[in-house]
């Protein structure tokens, strides 16, 4: 279990998740910087993500979609707000229309990610992810949009896989 601490602030609609990985910071950064790696963990097995555009540079952005079990597509975009290659990234993540352009009628969220080498062990990296929403409605929309159903399904699938693997 990589997650070491979760702080939730319902007044400010913010969540901070701290996690720890047995790998160097450069490998952790690669997981975000390489779209082929990113799409292997961003979406759950039921809704895998495909990044069609991935420009990790200041002012850059991403276009991606997640494909549901029925072939239904949920399109999204990222806008790079700030970037410190190898150590930090701040993006806005929102919904897109069928052409992949930002849908202004839909909610977006801000995600701040930072990575640093653990002091006690150079082979361990700490990653902190802070997500924040402008409103309760925005958070609801993000959770409603397929992704969440996908996550719940994914957790069930993982449990199943573990159960069959352990037998």
């Amino acid at each position, binding site marked *: 279990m990589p997650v070491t601490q979760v702080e939730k602030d*319902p007044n400010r609609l913010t969540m901070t998740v701290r996690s720890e990985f047995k790998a160097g910071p450069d490998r952790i950064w690669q997981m975000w910087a390489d779209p082929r790696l990113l799409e292997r963990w961003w979406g759950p097995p039921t809704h895998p993500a495909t990044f069609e555009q991935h420009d990790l540079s200041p002012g850059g952005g991403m276009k991606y979609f997640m494909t549901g079990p029925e072939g239904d597509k949920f399109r999204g975009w990222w806008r790079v707000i700030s970037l410190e290659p190898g150590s930090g990234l701040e993006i806005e993540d929102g919904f897109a229309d069928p052409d992949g352009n930002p849908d202004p009628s839909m909610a977006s969220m801000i995600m701040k990610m930072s990575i640093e080498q653990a002091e006690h062990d150079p082979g361990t990296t700490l990653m*902190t992810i802070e997500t924040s929403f402008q409103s309760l409605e925005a958070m609801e929309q993000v959770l409603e949009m397929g992704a969440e159903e996908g996550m719940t399904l994914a957790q069930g699938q993982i449990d199943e896989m573990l159960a069959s693997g352990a037998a």
Partner: protein
Amino acid sequence: MIVEKATGAEHEKEADRLFGALAHSTRRDIVRRTMESDYSVSELARCYTTSFAAIQKHVALLEAAGLVIKSPRGREQIVRGSTARIEEARELLGRMESLWRDRLDRFDQLLGTTNEGDKPCP
């Protein structure tokens, strides 16, 4: 570490605002009323002998403490007790948490580190 300390101070400030807001019988009464039904500021003002301006001030303090939420309805401001919304925010953040836990489990598995000292999950 610095982040955690800042959050701790932030929580303390929040608690001060909360207890300060509740340290007045009229404000406690406003919270009780607005949790039961919606009131405009002028409707609230009619419930008390104090001035409209004083009630406005009370409402502003309660709003800053996160105890009520003001939303416009026509030309009026509707005041609602916000504990339900805070509960809702808590629930949504809980779902957000499991989403990220799952995502970071996949991240970890992909890094291929799960079998390094981690005991298998049931």
